[in-house]
């Protein structure tokens, strides 16, 4: 009950501080602009003036859509870090936590409440942006990616993973430091994923292992790759997947994350949230 109170408070803060309004306006603007772009994509012609083939249009649309979703995923990760990093530390530093923690409230309820509130914001953001973008793409080009629900689920997972990390660091370090650390780790994981893919294609066990380890330590990149997989036309996967051109291409994925990896991701989040509870419990206010 207290955790839900904190969750509602977290969501209300995002609304009152106009974070939701700013994201909504920018999202509508971006989706409008991409809609205009996709509209033009569907009018492309060959040099002889004939319309491009439907398969070419589908391929081009899927590639641009991957890029657009990459932008949304980056905005999601950055926003999640920016919002989660000061979520606990700012209340500890300002003194807001003093009067709240003196109430019959367990520290785990604070962590759980913050996490639930932030996770709810991520779910709403991803669901709204993905649905709107895919509707616009479908209306303008007729292309519907093979896994729209999977796409949203992977993006939500990516946002929740990086948010959980930022929330953990927020129990010990200032919002600024927690944000920088979380972002550096996020981009390191991305680079690690790219390197792992190169190692995989060219048979370098060491590089592949480094990539795997980075994905296990911070599963954001693997989840991003899952969302790319859900966006690609099936034929494209088969054709490009057979060549070495796929090596290190962060916008092409031949296979989705394994069930084992997804289970590890759930465990990772549970472990990080548990560690956050422990860290805040040990923290003197």
């Amino acid at each position, binding site marked *: 009950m207290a955790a839900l109170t904190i969750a509602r408070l977290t969501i209300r803060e995002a609304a009152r501080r106009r974070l939701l309004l700013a994201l909504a306006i920018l999202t509508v603007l971006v989706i409008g602009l991409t809609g205009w772009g996709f509209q033009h994509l569907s009018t492309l012609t060959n040099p002889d003036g004939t319309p491009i083939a439907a398969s070419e249009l589908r391929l081009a649309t899927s590639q641009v859509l991957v890029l657009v979703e990459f932008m949304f995923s980056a905005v999601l990760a950055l926003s999640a870090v920016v919002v989660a990093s000061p979520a606990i530390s700012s209340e500890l530093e300002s003194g807001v936590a003093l009067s709240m923690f003196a109430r019959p409230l367990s520290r785990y309820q604070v962590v759980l409440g913050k996490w639930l509130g932030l996770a709810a914001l991520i779910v709403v953001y991803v669901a709204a942006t993905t649905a709107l973008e895919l509707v616009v793409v479908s209306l303008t080009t007729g292309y519907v990616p093979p896994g729209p629900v999977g796409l949203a689920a992977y993006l939500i997972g990516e946002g929740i993973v990086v948010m959980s990390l930022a929330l953990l660091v927020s129990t010990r370090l200032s919002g600024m430091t927690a944000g920088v650390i979380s972002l550096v780790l996020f981009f390191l994981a991305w680079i690690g994923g790219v390197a792992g893919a190169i190692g995989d294609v060219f048979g370098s066990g060491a590089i592949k292992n480094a990539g795997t380890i980075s994905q296990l330590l911070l599963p954001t990149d693997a989840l991003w790759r899952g969302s790319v997989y859900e966006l690609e036309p099936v034929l494209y996967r088969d054709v490009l997947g057979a060549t070495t051109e796929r090596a290190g291409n962060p916008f092409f994925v031949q296979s989705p994350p394994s069930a084992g990896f997804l289970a590890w991701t759930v465990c990772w989040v549970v472990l990080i949230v548990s560690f956050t509870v422990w860290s805040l419990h040990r923290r003197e*206010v």
Partner: protein
Amino acid sequence: MQAAAAAPPPVSEDGAAVRTLELTKHYGASVALAGLTMVVPRGEVFGFLGPNGSGKTTAVKLLLGLSRPTGGEAWVLGRPAGDRETRSRVGYLPELFRYQGWLSAAEVLGLHCRLAGIGRAEWAAQIAGALSTVGLTGHADARVETFSKGMQQRLGLGVALLGHPELVILDEPTSALDPVGRADTRAIIRHLRDRGCAVFLNSHLLGEVEQICDRAAVVSDGRVLAIGGLDELLGSGGVRLRLTGLTEAGRAALSRRGSLAEHNGWFVVNGVEAAAVPELVADLVATGARVYAVEPVRQTLEERFLALIEAEQARWQR
């Protein structure tokens, strides 16, 4: 909480508002509390006095479970300090009072009603009552970020009053208030005492403490230097006289009653009970002295506080 040598009792024997036993807190090599032992009975206004860095706020945080002691024991309302259920019966105004600036005053109070576990049916009355008590009724819907520091401190006091607490801990509750606000706060504290609520008051404002506290403790370097009722703390007072014709016999008569000093033409006899003053004057007159004025004198809390702190500092310098 460090365990006692024997199995610690889950409930203190007397259920005092606050009881501490050799409570200590170290931050690395720095000692914030060095064996704090004191009892605050229920229904009293208790002043907790000390210079900056004497461990007052640390003690409060330990009592509320915001911080963990290095050693010793503490009970609040008869339960171990930090006990979750007990915290629903304690109100707290921190020295560093900050509330969610993006909420309105009524919303902050509503949030604390939820967190304190107050029944939903009571919220409206509790919020209205708290706003009225601290004089913020007209600002119920204004965002806290638009409040002055004094208004925010008033709001914090309102938050501490929610849910009819049995103990209210106020850490420097008037630091941002004007004289009117201070008088209002004193009235609120008296009202709390009248309804049986204990008030633990951390304050630098010794004049205020003297006006409203039943008992007080003076702490320095994390230890209690003196504790007791204000009459006990301030001693039995004395008397000062303006007189002429004081003979050796007269001087001896004064010295017999207490310690004698001369200050600005007044003879001051410390430690004289009020009931003994007529006899003292009669003895003086019998020695031939002419008495023009007799006034009771009493040490102020500030004088007593400074004397205690100076004595403690001198002890450490030795």
